[in-house]
């Protein structure tokens, strides 16, 4: 169900531990979608590199779930309002 303006966070307080091996597998699938040559890259290292930030990405999703839906999209560039 889509969020509502006052909906409380519904995801766990602590995001699940990111699994580098699972990330590596997912990343390789996407690399194939984009037609990337894969033979030069250590994909296990990519998975490990991503693991930490994936945890925080889950945190992002949780945090913004409390934000109201907006009539305008989020800004893609910093504010010039001040």
């Amino acid at each position, binding site marked *: 169900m889509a969020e509502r303006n006052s909906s409380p966070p519904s995801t766990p307080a602590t995001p699940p531990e990111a699994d580098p091996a699972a990330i590596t597998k997912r990343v390789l699938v996407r690399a194939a979608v984009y037609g990337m040559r894969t033979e030069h890259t250590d994909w296990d290292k990519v998975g490990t590199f991503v693991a930490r930030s994936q945890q925080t990405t889950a945190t992002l999703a949780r*945090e*913004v779930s409390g934000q109201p839906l907006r009539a305008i999209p989020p800004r893609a560039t910093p504010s010039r309002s001040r």
Partner: protein
Amino acid sequence: MSELTQRSIGWLSAAYDERRASPVEVTQATLDRIAALDGELLSYISVLADSALDEARRAEQELFAGRRRGPLDGIPIALKDLIDVAGVATTGGSLHHRDVIATADSDIVAQLRAGGAVIIGKNNLYELGMGLPMPGEWPVPARNPWDLERIPGGSSSGSAVAVLTGLCAGSYGTDTGGSIRGPASYCGVVGMKPTYDLISRRGVLALSWTLDHVGPLGRTADDVAALLAGASGSSVELGDSIAGLRIGAPQALIDSTDMEPAIGRAFDEATSVLRSLGARLQAVELPELALTEATLLAIIGSEGLANHLPALADRPDEFGVSARERLSAGLAYTGVDYVNALRMRDVVIAQLDELYRSVDVLVSPVVLQVAPKKVDFERNPPHRTPFTGIHNIVGGAAVSVPAGFDGAGMPIGMQVAGAYGADALVLTVARSYEQATDWHTRRPADPSTRTA
């Protein structure tokens, strides 16, 4: 060494106006110094000696005829090698771009040329503004002039090294999460990330369109103000005093990090200096670090991969190991992740807008450590930017100013950050701090004069 290569931009400009020095003389002295030192420092990827001397002759004619075109007329300036100069390769520090010749000047170069600046060369950098240098890869990274076994930081590494050692009067770098301010702190120069797009990004090789900033590095806050004015075309007038200024320090964030003790001591002493100048210091809270880091990573990861994907997909062997892995990490982010990061960016902007109602500027350390030894860096590179990245998210002005040295003689910087458009204000604080200290005046011995 010619003293001309150590002079401030203000001194040189006055000397030109009074004919005590000439642009050709200063440009030649700078080129001679590059020839003498840069074999060791490696701060340049390309030196544009012939065209620089042509530009210096033209500047000399104009200035000596009483026609000043701008604050950088006749001043030898360098550019990070992500910035297009027509007819010159913009390598981006990457094999993939090494032979790609720019067909037109970037906006910043056009602006600098119109103001009479002398473009002396293109500075070394970390690959595409984000890859870490690895042994055996091109280009060989620049070295820290305070200790050649240490790194100068990145990604605007060559810019900081060249400015510190007088291999240019000022340089322009790019900063997506701290890539100007970090090297400035590691090398002991002033480095500024101006307000977003105050200096045009057109013609600058992008990493992340919405986080990239082009900004100046100089030896003093006044020099950086002149460099900012010269590249943006806008007036940058600094104030005379910071008495009564409300300065916030994110003390809880500072206390939560595992920074080297010398960094903390230098910061405490710096805030004491600011208090002695009449500023009112108060502790403030910034948005949660985990959120700002996640926002930054998701945006850089998504935009960086989108930008470089065509080349990375076809020619991965033309990217360094680190750049390849870091760009490929962007594959992990989904469209939802990117949109959530933009939503969080809105929240962070609103929180800092609110914070800047109660304080005029924020001060903090710049990085968590002094410049590490190259061998340590290659084994375990510092990867966190808890103090700098948030200002890329928000787009406000932020500057690193020299604020001390550790026990090994390595420089330490202090960051002064402000709201969108507060460029002159943060430079005013930096200059007031400089006037009360002498950290910015210290210089390392030239490599060639050192004893083993």
